[in-house]
């Protein structure tokens, strides 16, 4: 049982690191705030969750603590991304290369 758990943990470390790096790459490559939030808010959270699973298996963190942390991250990650995107839209940061913007049609004209 022990070697299998270690194998899973090592795979989780590799996967988590890969996703974290991808998140940072996305932050550099994508054009504007909103698309960058896709990279950090999802891929980033996914990477951290995988690293936490590895930490659960390899370190004496404790199963309960790790699971609570993972659940809180999964709830909090998308909420953070939404809050940042909403704030960015309210201070009128423009979208780049946008195909359409349904929100611009409904929001009132600038004072």
């Amino acid at each position, binding site marked *: 049982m022990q070697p299998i758990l270690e194998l899973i943990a090592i795979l989780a470390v590799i996967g988590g690191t890969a*996703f974290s790096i*991808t998140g940072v790459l996305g932050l550099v490559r994508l054009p504007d705030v909103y698309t960058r939030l896709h990279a950090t808010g999802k891929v980033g959270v996914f990477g951290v969750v995988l690293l936490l699973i590895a930490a659960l298996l390899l370190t004496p963190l404790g199963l309960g603590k790790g699971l609570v942390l993972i659940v809180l991250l999964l709830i909090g990650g998308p909420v953070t991304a939404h809050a940042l*995107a909403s704030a960015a839209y309210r201070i009128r940061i423009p979208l780049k290369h946008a195909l359409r913007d349904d929100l611009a049609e409904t929001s009132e004209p600038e004072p």
Partner: protein
Amino acid sequence: MRYLWVMISLLPVYLALTANLEVSNLIVGALLTLFVAVLLPPMQRSINVARLPGALLALLQYIIVLMIELIRSGLQVARIVLSPSLPIRPGIIAIPSGTNSELATALSAHAISVTPGELVVEIDDQGVMYTHCLDASQPEEARLFAQRQRHDLLRRIIQ
């Protein structure tokens, strides 16, 4: 009675965090959760005990769907970021949540932010969710269908 439900749902979290099942720890946990329950504003909705098992089953199904979506989301965004041509066609699309309940709208907004390539930017009074999509060229029917599925599942959970 209304404190009891908050305590029942919070106590497992405390026990998981402390990883200690001794009686003294149980008492401390009960007191702490009672304190939190008193601080929280009273719940508007009443809990129907007969419907609780069905709601928990729906909640479990919802969590599994969310996990699958999260994995797909991670892989999809990773593929977009890693491909040399950066194939994105971003845009903001209005998706009606199909419900008047604030809780249901908030939960579907969370679910949308987890699904691949979508991120809720703004919600208006009528519950329309303005969603930023990495690929806004996809047909709208698919999005509306996904939202209807989420909505049905959510209604089974919170009624």
